[in-house]
C-alpha cells in the first residue's frame, strides 16, 4: 500500500494556550513495498507523523492517503478501526504494552481483535513467534518474566501477527543488544522483500538507515526537509554541519580521511563495501599512499 501526505498540518491541543504545531505542511509519497527511514532529531515530529498513518492522530488540515483510504480531520473513528487492520505499529519500547498472562495469549490479542477465532489467532501467533526466532519454550510463560530482548520480540510478534500490509516502526532497535538488533533489522528487510510490506521506520541509527532503507525522509521541527535515497542524502554536508542530519560511521570516517589527505573529489561512501572501494581509489591515486594509511 502506498502512503501519501498532502499538505498535512497538525497542532497539539489546538484550542488551548499550550497549542503547538507539530507538523507543518508535510507532503510526500511513499511507493507500495518501499522501505523508508524517517530521520530527525528528538522532537522533530517523527512519532507524530507515524501516528497519522494508522489514524491515532488526524491531521488538523490536509490529507493522509493510505492505500485507497483518505484520512482528514473529519474521518470517523469507525473508519480508522478498519485502517488499523492494514497498518501495524511497533511503538517505542513496545514491551510496555505486554499485558496477557502468557506470551501466546498476548501475541494472539491482535489477530483476535481483527476477527480471527481463538484457535486460528493462536496458530498465527505461534507462526509469527517462530519466524522471529523466539524461544518457543517460553510460549506459556508470563511476558513479565522474559528478558528484555525476548520481551521486545514478543511485542514485535504481537504487531506482526495482525498481518499488516504497512509496518510503522518507532526506533525498533533502541535498547536491544547488537546481535538481536541486527537480526530484527534483517527480518524487516525480508518482510519488505518477500511479503511486499511497505515499511516506514523512525530511527536514530544512521548505519541501519544507510544499510536497509531505499529512501530517507528527513524532518526538522515539524517540517520535511528532504526526501532522497540514502546515497544522495548522506552527501548533504551542509545539513550535517547544521546538525539536522547525522551520518553513518563509514561516511564520517571517509570525511575525516578526506580532510587529512585532501582527497575530496569523490562521492562519500555509505556502506563498508563502498568505503573499501573509496579507500582503494583514494590510495591508488595518491602518489604518497604509504603515508596516508587510514587511521584518521
Amino acid at each position, binding site marked *: 500500500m502506498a502512503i501519501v501526505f498532502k499538505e498535512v498540518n497538525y497542532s*497539539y491541543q489546538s484550542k488551548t*494556550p499550550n497549542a503547538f504545531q507539530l507538523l507543518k505542511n508535510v507532503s510526500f509519497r511513499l511507493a507500495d513495498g518501499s522501505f523508508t527511514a524517517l530521520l530527525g532529531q528528538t522532537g522533530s515530529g517523527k512519532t507524530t507523523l507515524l501516528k497519522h498513518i494508522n489514524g*491515532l492522530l488526524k491531521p488538523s488540515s490536509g490529507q493522509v492517503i493510505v492505500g485507497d483510504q483518505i484520512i482528514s480531520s473529519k474521518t470517523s473513528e469507525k473508519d480508522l478501526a478498519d485502517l488499523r487492520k492494514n497498518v501495524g*505499529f511497533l511503538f517505542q519500547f513496545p514491551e*510496555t*504494552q505486554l499485558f496477557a498472562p502468557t506470551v501466546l495469549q498476548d501475541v494472539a*490479542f491482535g489477530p*483476535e*481483535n481483527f476477527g480471527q477465532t481463538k484457535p486460528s489467532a493462536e496458530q498465527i501467533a505461534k507462526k509469527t513467534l517462530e519466524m522471529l526466532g523466539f524461544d518457543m519454550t517460553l510460549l506459556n510463560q508470563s511476558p513479565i518474566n522474559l528478558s528484555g530482548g525476548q520481551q521486545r520480540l514478543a511485542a514485535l510478534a504481537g504487531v506482526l501477527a495482525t498481518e499488516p500490509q504497512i509496518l510503522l516502526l518507532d526506533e525498533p532497535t533502541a535498547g536491544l543488544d547488537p546481535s538481536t538488533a541486527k537480526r530484527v533489522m534483517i527480518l524487516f528487510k525480508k518482510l519488505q522483500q518477500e511479503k511486499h510490506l511497505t515499511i516506514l521506520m523512525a530511527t536514530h541509527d544512521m548505519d541501519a538507515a544507510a544499510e536497509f532503507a531505499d529512501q530517507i525522509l528527513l524532518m526538522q521541527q515539524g517540517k520535511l526537509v528532504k526526501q532522497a535515497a540514502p546515497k544522495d542524502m548522506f552527501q548533504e554536508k551542509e545539513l550535517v554541519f547544521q546538525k539536522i542530519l547525522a551520518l553513518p560511521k563509514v561516511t564520517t570516517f571517509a570525511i575525516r580521511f578526506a580532510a587529512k589527505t585532501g582527497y575530496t573529489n569523490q562521492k562519500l561512501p555509505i556502506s563498508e563495501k563502498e568505503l573499501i572501494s573509496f579507500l582503494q581509489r583514494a590510495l591508488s591515486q595518491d602518489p604518497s599512499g604509504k603515508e596516508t594509511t587510514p587511521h584518521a
Partner: protein
Amino acid sequence: MPDFIFGQFMPGKSFIHDLDARNKLISVLLIVALDLLTTSWLWLFLFLLISLLSIRLARLNLNFFFRGIRFFVFMIFLTAVLQLLFSRGGQVIFSWGFLQLTQMGLQTGVIFFLRFLTALVAMTVFLLTTSPIAISDTLAFFLSPLKILKLPVDDITLTLSIALRFVPTMIATFSSILDAQKSRGAVFNRGSLLHRMKMYIPVMAPLFLNSVKRAEDLAAAMIMRGYTDGRQRTRFRVMHWRLVDTIVMAAWLPIILLLFITR
C-alpha cells in the same frame, strides 16, 4: 485524554499564582465549607461567581479550563439530574410515568449542581496555579502539629507530593499504551458495558506494572542520592506570606459573619 487538566500545574505569573499556597488552600476549603452550609440562592451564586472570577485572576484561558474539567462537570450534572428526578416533596411540576419532577427535587438538584461545580472550579484553580512542591509544603505546614503524636508528617507529605508529581506521567503512559492497543485492533467504545470494561485490562495491567517499576527506580535513585528519611530536612524554597495574603484572609471574615447572620 490530553484534555484532562485535573491535577496538572500550569506555571505562570498572576494574582492567584503569587498568593501563598496556604492562603489558597484555606480559601478553597472555606468556599467549599461555606457553600455546603448555606441554601440561599444569593450565597450559592456569589460563591460560584468568586470561583469563576478566580479563573480570570489566574489568567487561565476559559475555553481551555472548561474543556479540561468537562468530564467532571458532566458527571456532576448527571448526578444532579438523578437528584432532580428522585427527590420527592412539594408541588409536582411535571410527571411522566414513574418519573416525577417536584419543586423539592428541582431545588435539591440545582443546589447540588451549583455546590459541586463551585467546589470543582475552586479546587482546579488551586491545583493549576500551585506547584506540587508548594502543595506538599502546605500540607506539611498544616500537618506539622501532628508531629507531637509521632506521626511521620514529612514522609507523608513527600509521598503525597511524589504522587501528585506522577499524575501527568501516568496520564502520558496511559495514552501511549492506549495507542499501542488501539493499533492492535482494540476498540474501546463498542459492545456491552462488561465487554468495554474487559477491553481496559490490556491498558490497565501494563500501566500498573509500569508504575511499580517506576516507583522502584525512583526509590533506588533517592537512596543513591543519600536520601534517608524526611526528618530535620531544611528547605530550599521557603514559603512567603505577604501583605496581600493577609488582606485576602481578612476579606473572608465579613463574608463568614454575614453568612452566619443571614442564616
